[in-house]
């Protein structure tokens, strides 16, 4: 056969085909076996060109909305593109050189890193804890359903709701925290030292369940006999978790971390609604700063340079993610029960 099934059985989404589909598949297989005895037209393997034509529309659309803007971005980053009168001149990498002394750019990266790290630590910690608790719990189904709800919410709406909850004038969470003596009279978003935490909390509220679900899927795949062998070897539950469970769900954790990391780059909805980067730039993570530079200062050239650094890092992360995707461990299926 000239044409091979590429990456066959790698199995993304494979577990997803519904029972009905499987049934159908089996019937079709039966059919295939019978028919393949008739050698008639087996040689009419489709030409490669046919497949390329099928691919083309999607590729063209994607190229238009990605490659073209990308080169435009590169062009802008090398030119003096802003709102001033003398525009669009080649500027000897001034946009790039400026990044070297642009403290907000550097702070932006640093804050983005901090933000992501805080989100990760909280979400992974909580997510794993929840997953371990949920795994096999009597209420697993119900609880998972409850945890799905925040994820379905538009981040902007989530931001607004939390803005309402945090507000020092009428916010119930503010009241709760104050009453519990956790917070002073400043709202969590009104203090540069806590504003980032406020946003992290919202992000955690919305996305910890995703980590929980990912880890839960991982936990279902931890081979029971490995756990048991380790127990027999003399491990208690905690050791068992760290020695067997954790290494087994490690690819899942990695995927979760990478996905959330990239989402933190991608989505600034929460920040835009909650603080707009303030107060005192304490939540001005790089994408937010980029938003300012491009859409508020209209320094499009400078913005393009910043955007490219952001893109570069995202692509590296993406590459790592794809590696993990394709690692064999992540692809093992749940044990048949």
């Amino acid at each position, binding site marked *: 056969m000239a044409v091979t099934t590429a990456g066959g059985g790698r199995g993304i989404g494979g577990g997803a085909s519904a029972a009905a589909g499987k049934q159908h598949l089996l019937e079709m297989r039966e059919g295939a076996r019978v028919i393949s005895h008739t050698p008639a037209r087996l040689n009419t393997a489709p030409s490669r060109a046919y497949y390329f034509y099928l691919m083309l529309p999607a590729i063209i659309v994607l190229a238009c909305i990605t490659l073209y803007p990308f080169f435009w971005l590169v062009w802008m980053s090398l030119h003096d593109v802003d709102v001033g009168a003398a525009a669009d001149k080649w500027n000897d990498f001034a946009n790039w050189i400026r990044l070297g002394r642009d403290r907000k750019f550097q702070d932006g990266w640093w804050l983005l890193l901090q933000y992501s790290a805080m989100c990760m630590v909280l979400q992974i910690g909580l997510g794993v804890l929840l997953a371990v608790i949920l795994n096999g719990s009597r209420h697993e189904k119900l609880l998972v359903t409850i945890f799905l709800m925040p994820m379905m919410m538009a981040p902007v709406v989530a931001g607004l709701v939390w803005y309402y909850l945090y507000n020092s004038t009428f916010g119930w969470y503010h009241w709760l925290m104050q009453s519990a003596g956790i917070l002073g009279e400043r709202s969590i978003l009104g203090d540069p030292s806590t504003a980032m935490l406020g946003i992290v909390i919202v992000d955690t509220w919305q996305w910890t369940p995703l980590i929980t679900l990912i880890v839960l899927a991982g936990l279902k795949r931890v081979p029971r006999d490995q756990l048991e062998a380790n127990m*027999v070897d003399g491990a208690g539950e905690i050791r068992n978790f760290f*020695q067997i469970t954790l290494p087994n769900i490690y690819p899942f954790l990695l995927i979760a971390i990478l996905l959330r990391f990239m989402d933190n780059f991608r989505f600034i909805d929460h920040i835009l609604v909650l603080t707009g980067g303030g107060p005192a730039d304490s939540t001005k993570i790089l994408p937010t700063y980029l938003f300012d530079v491009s859409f508020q200062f209209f320094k499009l050239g400078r913005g393009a340079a910043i955007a490219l650094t952001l893109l570069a890092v995202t692509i590296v992360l993406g590459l790592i993610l794809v590696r993990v995707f394709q690692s064999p461990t992540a692809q093992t299926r749940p044990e048949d029960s």
Partner: protein
Amino acid sequence: MASVTIDHVWKYYGKTEAVKDLNLKCADGEFLSVLGPSGCGKSSTLRMLAGLEHISAGDIRFGERRINDLPPKDRDIAMVFENYALYPHKTVRENIANSLMLRGASRATIEQKVKKATELLQIGHLLQRKPQELSGGQKQRVAIGRAIVREPQLFLFDEPIAHLDAKLRAHMRGELKIMQRELGTTMIYVTHDQLEALSMADRIAVMHEGVLQQFGTPQEIYDHPVNEWVAGFVGEPPMNFVDCLIEDRGGVLHAVHPSFAVPVTGSQEAILRDSAHRAEVRMGIRPDQIGIVTGDGGDAVAAQILLTEPLGGDMLVDAAVGQEKFLVKTKPDFQGRRGDACRLAFDTGRWHLFDRDTGLAYF
């Protein structure tokens, strides 16, 4: 080292009773095999011993110590799993050393014990590999190595060689038996393969549907199955069964079938006469307890050859007696052909009669 006492143990999964009122006692240093088809409760029993399942009712004692509520790590046992359950992220050395490390043994001790175990199993050259780089047999050895390095008071084996190919399986049987003798450790070995059980165990506990059927030495199990089920399960090729009636023909009790009537022996007759209810029985006879000769005549049971299966060292003959079919094991030089008439001679000294209602053996 310790003896193991299983005392009126029950195991339920929800409403399903997996193990029903099991009583067993395994002596110190004994090789005990728990034999039964899948779903008979043998694995549940083993897992209860290991502490991987709760004991629903009853007690299990190692020596005098009741271990019902002890977690596995406190039971001082080692277990070999059906799927080996090696830790894929650890090397062979780490896999084997795991239990020692968990118990905080010193580096030197670990090194020495791992060395000893791997030498015994001849896997010293594999120490740096990860499990996915090993063949099935090698994995098996590592799994066993992981168990023996512990020097536990009890070994638990859960169908450890079921996934190996036939030749390797035969080889491993021998090795395991030798190893157990050398270590002298009590071992409980679960299998569905009667050949494994018969060849390796000191005593066998046969289980069926959660109930212990028979507990005895391999020879006892083979020669004196307590009931029809055990008789049918143990032995390869399996025992022939035929429904018969016990009739008194001229003062001698006969097992009567439309196609034949065979008198019982004297001692057997005494047993039957003591029994009140004995009219309807089931006769069981192993293929090697039937003699076969070609041709007609004589007082032997007349039969017709349906099929012959030469197995090299032996020959299996399917013979029809009326509506019944008998499997006979004979010498390879047997000359019968399909369709030939033949005569079967039952070794009544070794056959069995079972109560048709209860399945219990008269003898």
